[in-house]
């Protein structure tokens, strides 16, 4: 049945959403920052790949080798300069600043690239799929993105629970003052968390750019989907983000199956339903909204 195929596609799409969402989740969990420029950063990563790849003659699929380090640095520096300054003023200022950043980034991209669509060209890989049966086919790219998402989440989980820095991040997220008292430089820890979050955003942006075409204002959709995934799955829970992403993906896929124009609406309605019925999401994390 094509419905089964729709659900399968939705699950795979959920991987992309989860990839978008985990950076958001990490930033919020660690420093209570809601980054409204999140989606636009992903688009910047995609544009970066489009710019860099031809000059370095790197196969597009490996573009992350260049883009990822750039975003790691961007995240650390951006956090310790702009975001920290805004954080010192208060949560309100952070929202304003990230919103302002979002508008600025989108319009700068618009000036540089105009409103045309671009795409990261991965050649023939984009159309290769596994044909499970007559109705169900799974694109290599979709599967690959889902696998990357799971690996990233697993990696993040391992990093947070086993490494020294991961422990420090959890401590700072629990109690910033007490963390200082045990010798943790919380500003540095924030910087590391932001660097990691930016790196995941970059990965998500690259995946997005390979998966579909993008334009300067394409960041708005992913921002909303990332938030929806986090809220549905449960704030503060990393695996909840994956579950939330999958639920959102399936909702969109099924909606799109009924009628292509219903795709985004279906996702929005599921999100609104979750807010109405269970605002804390499916999995309880440590952190409340």
């Amino acid at each position: 049945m094509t419905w089964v195929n729709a659900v399968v596609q939705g699950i795979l799409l959920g991987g992309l959403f989860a990839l978008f969402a985990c950076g958001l989740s990490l930033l919020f969990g660690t420093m209570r920052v809601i980054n409204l420029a999140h989606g636009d950063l992903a688009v910047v990563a995609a544009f970066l790949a489009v710019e860099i790849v031809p000059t370095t003659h790197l196969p597009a699929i490996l573009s992350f080798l260049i883009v990822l380090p750039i975003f790691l640095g961007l995240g650390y520096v951006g956090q310790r300069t702009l975001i920290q300054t805004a954080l010192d003023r208060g949560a309100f200022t952070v929202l304003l600043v990230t919103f302002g950043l979002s508008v600025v980034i989108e319009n700068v991209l618009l000036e540089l690239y105009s409103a045309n669509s671009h795409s990261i060209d991965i050649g023939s890989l984009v159309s290769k799929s596994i044909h499970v049966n007559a109705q169900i086919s799974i694109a290599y790219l979709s599967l690959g993105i889902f696998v990357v998402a799971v690996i990233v989440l697993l990696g993040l989980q391992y990093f947070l629970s086993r490494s020294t820095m991961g422990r420090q991040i959890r401590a700072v997220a629990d109690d910033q003052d007490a963390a200082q008292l045990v010798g943790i430089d919380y500003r540095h820890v924030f910087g590391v968390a932001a660097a990691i979050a930016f790196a995941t955003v970059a990965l998500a942006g690259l995946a997005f750019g390979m998966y579909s075409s993008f334009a300067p204002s394409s960041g708005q959709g992913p921002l909303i989907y990332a938030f929806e995934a986090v809220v549905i799955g449960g704030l503060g829970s990393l695996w909840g983000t994956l579950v939330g992403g999958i639920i959102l993906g399936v909702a969109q896929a099924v909606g799109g199956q009924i009628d292509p124009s219903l795709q985004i609406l279906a996702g929005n309605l599921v999100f609104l339903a979750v807010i109405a019925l269970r605002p804390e999401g499916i999995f309880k994390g440590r952190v409340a909204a």
Partner: protein
Amino acid sequence: MSVAPERTIEEAASAHVRVTRSRRPVRWSIAVVVVAIVALAALPYVVYTGTTDTLVNFFILLTMASMWNLLAGYAGLVSVGQQAFIGLGAYIVLLLGLHSVNPFAAVPLAAVGCGILALPISLLVMRLRGGYFAIATWVVADTCEQLVARSQTLGGGTGAGVAGFQGVDPTLLSANTYWVALAVTVVALASVYLVLRSRLGLVLTAVRDNEIGARSLGTRVTRAKRIVYLVAGAGCGAAGALLAVSQRFVQPGSVFSVQWSAEMIFVTVIGGIGTIEGPIVGAAVFFILQQTLSQYGAWYLIILGVVAIAVAIWTPRGLWGLVSRRVHVRLFPVGYWLWPRSGRNDARTTAPERSGDPASGEVPG
């Protein structure tokens, strides 16, 4: 509720101190405002329609910014989804026009309609706080756009023209549009002023200054925020209705665009959040920038964005904040002044500055 003890304390206190709402007698402020309104109303007789048309856009923006300022600056609700009500207001005018209602008459109806629609929406979005509340408002706006665009009667995705303007003299039409816009703006600003002067305003200021302390007021706080959300919804609905009337064409992608939120927010932040005068100053600055930079495409938004970020971080009280700190002028007095009853008419204490501006510290929710 026992009244007697409170009155004794009040009487005792007021024996030593006189409490007024403003430094100079209020009648001066009222006089200035009345003169300004009369002057503005006379403009269509004096200037070309081009100028009044531009002013209509200014009024629309000012109305929106005042509403966002009320929401975020006083109730602490950072909404990135007010375009939902702008769009709904515009479409109510369109819808009523299809039923032969005069578009100008439809404007107040659209405001009321949006105020009513804001109630169920508030029940939904106010279950989240902070940035999640913000995104929820955006999703609601997006959903409204998607739903409305499915209706072919309303023009679907391409939009439709507003009925009821055929055969009207263009100059008269322009003047009428201008006067309706002026009226909406005056009512909007007056509403904000009245809300803030009322008990509601006190509750809101308390919430803004200290969320935890204000929680002891319990449901009062949620109720106050909800009322503000409804008022802001109605105000943005009126602005959207004005859009429909002035542009005579309504298209989902345009009236529901998040661009409106961007403009509202930048105008309010730059002008001065948490003051009534702030959005006026901000809208003026915005307009000047837009007029001078419009030929450079997206640049005016980039510059505005950068300025807004800089203001949010370094001068959180905005341009008006810089001015009012030096001059102690309030066009719209909503605080209190204390005058010792020593027979002299000048204040020994400085004005009770509203501490805890949201832009300078934590904002509740």
